[in-house]
């Protein structure tokens, strides 16, 4: 177990390092920051002064080393617009993003669980096919357009829920639902096949032989065993969900990191963009690590392979 833990940890650190390196070269690709920082009428001396201040006159290797050292100390540079540390701006927005992503994650699981059970217990194959069809259609609609449809239906037409901003539970419902339903078709399929796998097991046959009802067997015996794959895939997808949250936040004017990144892009505030991307990637790597470790704890076969 310790060996698995160490290997997985090392892998995560390497990944973060790779992301940092990519970020550094991306920033260099963006061009000379001193040109962006200074007004148009700046003289060559001004530019030279600022370049040496920022260390841009040093070799690329030295700059890279300094960049990594700074990041390790939590210094991601100042926002070009607001003159405050970029990391602070990102950290300020992080709770909103996590709130949205985690709510959508839990909601997605609950929905998959409830609908999956209905599909299993219903005697009508037509209803089952219809639900699956709806889930497939949902998946073929891009997140931003689905969000817009939700606004059109629940805010504009019915007037039940607010379309923008964050604050109350009502504000959370539409963006969370938009994100939560996206993977529903995948979850339903998984849940269904996991339940189907249990169907043929000896313990299920025994339970039938003892005269238990179908409903009871499904709920009591098969369900707990079918949950693990669903939770695993959902955990893996939590990272993907963070990516989709970036777009969803813009649709619903949700004040999270994603919206901050998009706004900073249009203001050419690169330090904030990079800080935001790094932060989301870090959360992404962390989540994947935790999911893997949890799974290794739950299923010994994983850590042995």
């Amino acid at each position, binding site marked *: 177990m310790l060996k698995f833990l160490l290997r997985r940890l090392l892998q995560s650190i390497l990944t973060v390092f790779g992301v940092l390196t990519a970020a550094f070269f991306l920033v260099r690709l963006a061009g000379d920051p001193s040109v962006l920082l200074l007004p148009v009428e700046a003289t060559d001396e001004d530019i030279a002064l600022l370049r040496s201040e920022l260390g841009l006159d040093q070799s690329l290797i030295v700059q890279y080393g300094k960049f990594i050292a700074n990041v390790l100390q939590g210094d991601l540079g100042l926002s070009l617009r607001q003159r405050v540390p970029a990391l602070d701006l990102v950290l300020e927005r992080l709770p909103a993003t996590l709130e949205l992503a985690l709510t959508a994650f839990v909601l997605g699981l609950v929905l998959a669980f409830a609908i999956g059970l209905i599909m299993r217990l219903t005697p009508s194959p037509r209803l089952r096919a219809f639900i699956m069809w709806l889930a497939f259609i949902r998946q073929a609609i891009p997140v931003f357009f689905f969000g*817009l449809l939700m606004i*059109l239906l629940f805010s504009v037409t019915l007037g039940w829920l607010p379309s923008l901003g964050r604050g109350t539970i009502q504000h959370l419902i539409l963006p969370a639902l938009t994100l939560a339903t996206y993977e529903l078709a995948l979850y339903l399929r998984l849940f269904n096949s996991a339940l189907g796998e249990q169907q043929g097991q000896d313990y299920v046959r025994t339970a039938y032989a003892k005269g238990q009802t179908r409903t009871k067997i499904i709920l009591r015996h098969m369900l707990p065993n079918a949950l693990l794959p669903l939770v695993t895939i959902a955990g893996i997808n939590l990272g993907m969900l963070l990516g989709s949250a970036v777009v969803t936040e813009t649709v619903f004017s949700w004040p999270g990191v994603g919206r901050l990144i998009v706004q900073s892009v249009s203001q050419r505030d690169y330090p904030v963009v990079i800080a935001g991307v790094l932060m989301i*990637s870090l959360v992404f790597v962390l989540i994947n690590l935790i999911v893997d470790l949890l799974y290794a704890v739950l299923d010994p076969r994983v850590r042995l392979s």
Partner: protein
Amino acid sequence: MSTTDMGKPLATTRSFAGLRSALHIITQSYSMMLAALLLLAVLLLIIIVPLTPGYDPYSQNLAVSLATPFETIDGRTYIFGTDTLGRDLLSRVALAGRVSLLIGVSAVAISLVIGVFLGLVAGFFRGVVESAVMGLADLQLSIPRVLLLIAVAAIVGPSIANLTILLGLTSWVVYGRVARAMALSLREREFVLSAVTQGASAAWNIRKHLLPNVLPQMLIVGSFELGQIIVFEASLSYLGLGIQPPLPSWGMMISEGQEYLETDPWIALLPGIAIFMLVTGVQFLSQAFTSEGQFDLASPPKAST
């Protein structure tokens, strides 16, 4: 895989069989027929509208701004209505579709070439090359793809060429992984071993023996990816980081239309429906090829972001 040991791939006959059975699947299932119809309808719109005399996606005419669909003003009927600047939405939806398809197909071609090359080389040579390629793939997957696209698009600046190259460069992983997996088993086959012992170079083997055997599968993956790429492009354009005005794009039109959702919802709805039709059509049909058993992506059609 039913490749003979003669070294002559059966790819052509097999893909014809694949096409026939895919057609069979399509005609057998109502949802497949529906998907085919959706795709056909949107393709016809994209192809035919720019050939009609009323085609004009650019000229603004405030006198006819916000015409509702099928409204006739001064003897001209606006089938899709007009936007705030009085531009004809039918023309804009059609042109945006052409741009979307152009970018999508080109990006798929770029990523297919890169992915197949890296995957085959990794699978054929193994060792360091394989570790490097797969490490790069893992690294790329450790950043949510939308986020990566946003960060790079922000820095290199949006243009059709940049967007296409960017989408192509970030989408190779799926081809790379599948091609590598197939190369791993192909390289052990007798026809490859025989060529190697007879002194055939690695390049010759990859080109003559591996490539023809993986290509049909890669094209199926590509058709599946096309829908996803179109959605990524639309998402970026929705965020203002993709196609830039005056050229229309579905994502941008939806973002413009969102402001008028309460009064004139069709501005956002029409391009959204067009995306849905194209993506659903493409993905359901590629599903017909995959469910036929040649290649299982193990996931239902989806719109990624």
